[in-house]
């Protein structure tokens, strides 16, 4: 009876195996693990003799022979790297490693001098690299602060501060480049003889610091200061250095941001699976082993639990989504399109407001102190106000649209990104296209743009400062003193909203990039403001905010942050290109020579002069490189290379899928064969017992005879 059941089961397995799909096979294995066969499978004799099991066993019994101990089979350590692997990396107890060490010492006496010297050099090199890496990472500032923030608020909030630190380093790099390319030569070689000297005049006032006019207008902060000095070689002069400095800054930023985007992309979306929605990571890599503090441990546990509940919520949501009827779907789509129209209307209204503010501020002449200051600052105030209010409205709107939590956050983010960058873009568009009044022709045009960017930057910082000390801190005080009052209940507990704060950072950095051509000290101002912002935000987070229960998925959106930064950089590049083109076109109107490109010069004139001074071969090469005859083959070559990469990745993907299926098949084959073997052995034993039983019966039957 027992054998008959087994045979039926084997037939079933044979039926299933030709099906060959992964899902079917895993069902079969589920069935088998639930039945009593599972214990047998792992207890059969042949199972212990399988090569894959033999390979794992000696590593467990650490003392089992020195050779087998070294030849561990876990992953990459199993191949012949073991003899050159550092002892510390071997998977053995210390006694085993000591024996291996003695053996290696004996071996070393047999290796020649050259080989041992090479090995010791490589060990020393590795040690030096490790020390350098350690030193560099300890140079990174604010490590303890970040650790404290992570302990109290989780990885999401920490990612904001890491992004901020990265931007500060980027700006410091820009400052270094600017001092090398622009400030240094100007300081050493001086400016032109007919440039306005830098000293305080009667019409200067304290408001100049905010308006960027007067004393600041003539200072090194703006474009107009850097005139062509005594450095006047054809290929090495102030204008060319200035322009190449700005270009280097933009190119370097592009390379660094693209690199970080790609690194984040690889981590998040490798092999088509998302890291943050993978629950296996949450369980198996979830706990932070460095936690000592009981309260930090409780917090971490609550984060993990909330993460898992969020995952379960999303599972339930996707089940619910799958069960939506047609009527419900129609209603939902109508609701969503209405809400999107509302969003578009809000955006349109915001842009119109900005346009109106720009027009108003340009009508203002700038006579009397504070009122004119307010009017001059009207566009930045409008932009900041719009960027403060609308994202929260978007957040409320997206909560009605019945998306999963992650999609809600992403949709709000996309809308807010569009709002921020488009509002900046519209403002720039109106600034560049304003009509030239009589008065403005007397001023330096690039300085005017620089002044607008400067005002944006200063006001952004002021807004951060006021937000922290005039909004967040009083809100917290209200919560603390009178928690039951109406005001406290209406405002609720404060959470640190990472996406919106990151958007602010990206906006500030975009302003810095757009304005660096007209206001070379903008990166320096940016560095200072960002460093102060770090401390302000640290104060806000640690003193005023409470940890959010629904944690923000950091790894998923670090790609998004860097991508937003790329968009900002792209906008800056487009603005610069557009302006250079305009410079070329409108050069006749530029009656006031200011900055490095005075006297009717443009960037193209200066580069032309430089190219003409080069030897013939270099000239013709450069002209060829800049012509269309080179651009077209270059684009074609890029397209071909891209296509080859894409098709290779697709082929790899297919190979991976095939290998996965093969793996499932082989493992199922192995299980089948082991069970077969066990069954056959059992049959043999049964057959052995049966004849011996008959042998026993005969002697007992003969006496009866």
């Amino acid at each position, binding site marked *: 009876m027992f054998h008959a059941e087994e045979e039926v089961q084997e037939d079933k397995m044979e039926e299933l195996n030709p099906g060959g799909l992964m899902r079917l096979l895993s069902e079969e294995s589920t069935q088998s693990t639930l039945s009593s066969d599972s214990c047998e499978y792992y207890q059969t004799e042949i199972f212990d003799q399988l090569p894959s099991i033999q390979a794992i066993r000696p590593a467990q019994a650490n003392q089992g022979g020195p050779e087998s101990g070294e030849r561990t089979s876990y992953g990459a350590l199993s191949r012949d790297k073991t003899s050159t692997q550092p002892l510390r990396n071997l998977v053995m107890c210390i006694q085993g490693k000591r024996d291996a060490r003695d053996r290696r010492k004996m071996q070393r006496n047999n290796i020649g001098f050259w080989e041992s010297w090479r090995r010791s050099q490589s060990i020393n090199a590795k040690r030096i690299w490790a020390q350098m890496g350690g030193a560099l990472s300890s140079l990174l500032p604010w490590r303890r602060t970040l650790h404290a923030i992570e302990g109290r608020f989780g990885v999401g909030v920490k990612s904001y501060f890491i992004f901020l630190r990265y931007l500060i380093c980027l700006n410091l790099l820009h400052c270094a480049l600017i001092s090398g390319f622009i400030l240094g030569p100007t300081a050493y070689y001086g400016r032109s003889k007919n440039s306005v000297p830098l000293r305080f005049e009667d019409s200067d006032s304290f408001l100049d610091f905010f308006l960027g006019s007067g004393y600041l207008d003539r200072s090194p902060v703006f474009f107009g200061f850097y005139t062509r000095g005594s450095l006047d070689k054809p290929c090495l002069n102030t204008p060319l250095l200035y322009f190449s400095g700005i270009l280097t800054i933009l190119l370097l930023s592009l390379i660094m941001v693209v690199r970080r985007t790609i690194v984040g992309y690889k981590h998040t979306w490798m092999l088509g699976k998302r890291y943050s929605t993978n629950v296996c990571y949450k369980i*198996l890599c*979830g706990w932070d082993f460095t936690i000592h503090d009981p309260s930090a441990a409780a917090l971490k546990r609550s984060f993990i639990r909330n993460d*898992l509940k969020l995952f*379960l919520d999303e599972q339930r949501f996707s089940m619910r989504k799958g069960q939506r009827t047609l009527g419900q779907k129609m209603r939902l789509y109508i609701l969503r399109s209405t809400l999107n129209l509302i969003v578009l209307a809000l955006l349109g209204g915001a842009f119109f407001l900005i346009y109106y503010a720009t027009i108003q501020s340009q009508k203002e002449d700038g006579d009397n102190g504070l009122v004119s200051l307010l009017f001059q600052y009207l566009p930045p105030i409008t932009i900041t106000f719009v960027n403060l209010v609308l994202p929260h409205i978007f957040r409320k709107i997206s909560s009605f649209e019945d998306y999963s939590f992650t999609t809600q956050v992403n949709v709000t983010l996309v809308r807010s990104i569009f709002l921020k960058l488009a509002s900046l873009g519209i403002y720039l568009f109106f600034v560049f296209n304003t009509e030239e009044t009589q008065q403005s022709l007397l001023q330096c045009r690039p300085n005017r743009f620089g002044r607008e960017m400067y005002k944006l930057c200063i006001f952004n910082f002021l807004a951060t400062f006021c937000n922290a000390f005039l909004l967040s801190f009083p809100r917290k005080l209200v919560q603390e003193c009178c928690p039951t009052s109406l005001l406290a209940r209406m405002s609720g507990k404060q959470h640190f909203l990472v996406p919106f704060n990151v958007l602010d950072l990206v906006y500030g950095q975009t302003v810095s990039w757009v304005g660096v051509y007209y206001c070379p000290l903008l990166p320096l101002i940016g560095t200072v403001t960002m460093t102060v912002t770090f401390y302000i935000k640290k104060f806000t987070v640690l003193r005023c905010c409470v940890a959010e229960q629904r944690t923000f998925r950091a790894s998923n959106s670090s790609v998004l942050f860097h991508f937003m930064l790329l968009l900002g950089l792209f906008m800056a590049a487009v603005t610069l290109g557009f302006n250079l083109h305009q410079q070329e076109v409108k050069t006749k109107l530029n009656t006031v020579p200011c900055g490095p490109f005075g006297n009717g010069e443009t960037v193209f004139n200066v580069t032309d002069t430089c190219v003409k001074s080069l030897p013939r071969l270099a000239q013709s090469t450069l002209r060829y490189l800049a012509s269309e005859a080179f651009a077209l083959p270059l684009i074609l070559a890029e397209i071909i290379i891209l296509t080859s990469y894409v098709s290779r990745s697709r082929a790899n993907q297919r190979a991976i899928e095939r290998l996965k299926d093969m793996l499932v098949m082989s493992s199922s084959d192995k299980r089948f064969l082991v069970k077969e073997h066990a069954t056959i052995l059992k049959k043999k034993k049964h057959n052995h017992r049966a004849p011996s039983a008959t042998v026993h019966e005969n002697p007992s039957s003969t006496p009866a005879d």
Partner: protein
Amino acid sequence: MGNKQTIFTDEQLDAYQDCTFFTRKEILRLHGRYHELAPHLVPMDYTNDPDCKLPLALIVNMPELKENPFRNRIVESFSEDGMGNLSFNEFVDMFSVLSEMAPRELKAIYAFKIYDFNVDNYLCKEDLEKTLNKLTKEELTPEEVELVCEKTIEEADLDGDNKLSYADFENMITRAPDFLSTFHIRI
């Protein structure tokens, strides 16, 4: 350099330095920590390799391990007898693997051992359920626990046997960017 210590011979310290990720100073400091767990049991003189083991209960009360939900399993997976009694060698080995300088492969091997509660070289569903319960201190309902464990196996299992072998685990770990930074204990 410095003062002459009498706890270990120079040869022993050299061996420790080669076999672990610690320097001589750190080994001596570790010995100090080991000694203060049980001052009457642990000899100060290790030059002749005394055979002294500390029980599990003493080691899991160390401040570095106290808040860790897997502290029992960590100590058990480094002990030779599987019961959690650590000699000084095993103590040093444990903190060496869990230190910052250990490479990813080594940590992955021991992480697998730690999560393998029934020590059968596979992370089966019961192992994962125990892990999850320790992680969340049983705040999830049993249905939720089962759903999460099933999803875990579905995501990580490559060879279709409904449990995670070491190859599956390692494949998953290589895609986790913060495994190295979370799986370490500073002592």
